[in-house]
């Protein structure tokens, strides 16, 4: 049964100077499970993701990934360990074009020679077309630089990057925030495909409908603490209930100290 | 006793010999320490160094001035601190009003360019070019007093009757540097203009010009090249028949003289306030006398 858990955090805490952004987060994710994180702005959701993926170093607490305690020095370590992330800030290189961004850090090469390996531009371009189609976004010229893309186009490039590579865990921080109606539907399809493939996912979103549709469970953050863990697939939980937890009108008994 | 020394520049061939002269002499004396600093051609830095020496309580200061017009403030700084001061190598502008505990051991900069140019003029005449000759002039860094002075010497000599057969085709700066002189000379060569002499403000530039001319296949016997400093490289070039004129200055002698004066002033003894050390002309005829001097 412990074998079943892909990610666990114990007492994960992050302080920025005097700001206690994340306090004592205990969180578990089973293999194949899709969990949503919800909460007010500034509740500590992105901070939680940054601690897991090694963007920052935690103040204290443990992260156990795939059965082993991990200390990722940087996001690359996390990615090598099998965690793919769409960050809220997207992490795109503005002056590069779409295929360059999609394959940043894992370029396809024609000829291997350490850092001086020769790039296979054609193959990367072709695979990019395929990856973008999945998100449904329209980009007039994929050889244009990212700085010329609209907000939604950028977000789709970031999502396509994550969805192109297999991973043990996918984390998406507000992936559809800037997306249009159609593109949102496509990204939700991508998430469903992950579910069918049994790949676990952490989805941060403010969109109640989306979360209710896509996820098995909702974890609610409030004031830097987890205040609820709601099994929406099995129990009878409504949007109003979730909002009550978010606003602080309700707190689950096991998280009483978050009140 | 501790003597503070502020040199205008460390990475200068001639001043290095002078500096080593001071250092070696001090090393040979019992109980004499010298502390030598590099003013990096900055007059303000030099003044600060004098003040720092004063704060550290040295017994006397030797200054190789970055610029001789800046010596008023230095004289004042040393006098205010009550520390004896000796100028070396370059004659301070306030030479006639130095206080009693200050002195100088120097050469007159006007001589070097004058000796060089006059010798070039004589050689050109001897080659039968008295009817008209053309020369290029290579200047040192334009903000440097020696460069300005030596260039003016060239103009003065070429203005006298005996030498006014020489016309200057062009004069440009190569910033004392052999590399820039090489490039400048090649640029001149690319104009196709005929010429008979190259008069450079120092030996490094003269050698750069020679290298460029040789690369272009010119016969160095046909062209008179002059420099100043009598560096080892220049003497070797002269022995090889490429360089025709240079000017020697007794660096080690100046250094020794300055240290001696500084020590005596610090003990309150009497010294000659003005010591002139003349420049000496070096030509292929007497070059062998100089190969072991610098």
């Amino acid at each position, binding site marked *: 049964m412990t074998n079943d858990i892909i990610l666990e955090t114990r007492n994960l805490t992050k302080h920025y100077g005097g700001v206690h952004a994340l306090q004592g987060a205990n969180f578990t994710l089973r293999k194949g499970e899709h969990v949503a994180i919800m909460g007010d702005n500034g509740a500590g959701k992105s901070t939680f993701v940054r601690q897991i993926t090694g963007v920052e170093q935690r103040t204290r607490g443990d992260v156990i990934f795939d059965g082993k305690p991990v200390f990722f020095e940087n996001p690359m370590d996390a990615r090598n360990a099998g965690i793919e992330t769409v960050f809220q800030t997207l992490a795109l290189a503005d002056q590069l074009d779409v295929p360059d961004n999609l394959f940043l850090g894992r370029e396809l090469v024609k000829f291997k020679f350490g850092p001086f390996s020769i790039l296979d531009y054609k193959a990367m371009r072709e695979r990019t077309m395929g990856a973008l189609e999945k998100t449904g976004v329209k980009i007039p010229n994929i050889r244009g630089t990212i700085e010329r893309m609209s907000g939604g186009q950028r977000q789709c490039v970031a999502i396509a990057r994550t969805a192109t590579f297999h991973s043990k865990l996918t984390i998406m921080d507000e992936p559809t925030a800037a997306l249009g109606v159609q593109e949102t539907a496509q990204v939700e399809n991508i998430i469903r495909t992950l579910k069918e493939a049994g790949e676990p996912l952490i989805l941060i979103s403010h969109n109640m409908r989306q979360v209710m549709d896509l996820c098995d469970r909702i974890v609610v953050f409030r004031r830097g603490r987890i205040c609820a863990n709601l099994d929406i697939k099995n129990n009878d939980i409504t949007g109003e209930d979730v909002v009550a937890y978010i606003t602080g009108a309700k707190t689950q008994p096991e998280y009483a100290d978050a009140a | 006793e501790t003597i503070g020394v502020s040199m205008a520049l460390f990475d200068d061939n001639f001043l290095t010999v002078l500096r080593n002269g001071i250092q070696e002499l001090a090393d040979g004396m019992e109980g004499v320490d010298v502390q030598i600093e590099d003013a990096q051609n900055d007059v303000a830095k030099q003044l600060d160094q004098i003040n720092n020496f004063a*704060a550290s309580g040295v017994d006397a200061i030797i200054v190789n001035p970055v610029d001789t*017009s800046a010596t008023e403030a230095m004289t004042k700084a040393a006098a205010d601190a009550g520390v004896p001061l000796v100028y070396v190598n370059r004659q301070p502008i306030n030479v006639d009003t130095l206080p009693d505990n200050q002195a100088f051991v120097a050469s007159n900069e006007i001589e070097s360019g004058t000796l060089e140019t006059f010798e070039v003029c004589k050689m050109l005449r001897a080659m039968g070019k008295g009817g008209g000759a053309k020369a290029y002039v290579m200047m040192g860094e*334009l*903000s440097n007093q020696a460069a*300005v002075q030596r260039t003016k010497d060239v103009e003065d000599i070429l203005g006298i009757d005996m030498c006014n057969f020489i016309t200057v085709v062009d004069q440009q700066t190569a910033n004392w540097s052999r590399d820039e002189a090489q490039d400048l000379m090649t640029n001149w060569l690319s104009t196709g203009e005929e010429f008979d002499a190259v008069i450079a403000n120092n030996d490094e530039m003269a050698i750069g010009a020679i290298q460029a001319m040789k690369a272009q296949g010119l016969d160095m016997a046909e062209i008179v090249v002059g420099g100043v400093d009598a560096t080892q490289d220049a003497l070797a070039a002269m022995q090889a028949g490429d360089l025709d004129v240079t000017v020697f200055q007794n660096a080690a002698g100046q250094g020794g003289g300055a240290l001696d004066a500084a020590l005596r002033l610090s003990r309150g003894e009497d010294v000659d306030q003005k010591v002139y050390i003349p420049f000496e002309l070096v030509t292929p005829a007497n070059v062998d006398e100089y190969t072991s001097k610098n």
Partner: protein
Amino acid sequence: MSETSHGIGGLSFDAKKRAWPNEMNVFIALIAIIVIFEILGQVLPYMKGQSLLFDFNTNRDGTILNMVRLKIIILQVSIIGIIAIGSTQVIISGGIDLSPGSIVGLTAMVAMSFAQTALVNGNPNPKAIFGEAWMDLPVIVPIVVAIAVGTFAGLVNGLLVAYTRIPPFIATLGMMVAARGAAKWWSKGQPISFPTEPFGAIGNGMSGWSPVVIFIGLAILFHFILKYTVYGKHTYAIGSNEDAARMSGIKVDRHKVLVYTIAGILAGLSALVLASKNLTAQAGMGVMYELDAIAMTVIGGVSLAGGRGSIVGTVLGALIFGVIISGFTYLRLDAYYQEMVKGIIIVAAVVLDQWRRQRAAARA
């Protein structure tokens, strides 16, 4: 504290855990360097127990401090320090200025030409640039001239940066080369000397403390301007995010012109003090001053990316430089090693600052 926490249900915020000001790091570095010199003075045998800042054989003056050394420590960085004040605001605005060293050279030459005295020891001035009528002018003339030259050069920098949108590095590099050329051209490379007495007082007055007084006075003025005026706020805003500043309605271009012009004026003032203190002006004056000024600024915690830093930091950075220079002479460090060690200390000071900041950020 109600003013620092807002809204219902916000994160818990521990207001007592105030951020440690960045200037504190620089101050600690300064103290550390002084302490190292003092220890070396006691430990190295040939130093015979000398001290950098103190004077135990009080034969020279009444105080226990070595006043001569204290004075030279700050005096020798005052002139570059004045430039560094200008560089601080340029760098905070997200720019860089490579030209002040050359502007100093040019301004010194031009201003000194209007400060010459007619008679030197009873003889006519041997370095005269203009005719008699232009000699022995009131001291206000060279001062106005210096400010005018500095203003002009800074204005050109500012107009280039603001309206052609070329990188400041290039605009001011062009000015650096051109102004140095102009300085050499002004009197065909000849130094200009023998100023009038009132002119000499600018850099030598108050028993030699006047450069220090001018530097500190300007530092206080600009500290106030940067922290408490609209000018200062806009300077930080532009350095922080130029596009945002533009979209927020700040007249970015006009502001930049002002920033570079002020830097030019400060370079002009610095030239005035320099020429006066040395009683001469030379075309080669000020070479590399811009790099020292930038180094002081960065050691003082100003970010080259813009948007961060303060005058207090820069003043502390300048003091670190002063202590190093005087400390080397005091230790009689061989000149050959001085440059190597100076390079290492510049880097070390910034590394220390960086390290302290990272630790502060990481600390709970």
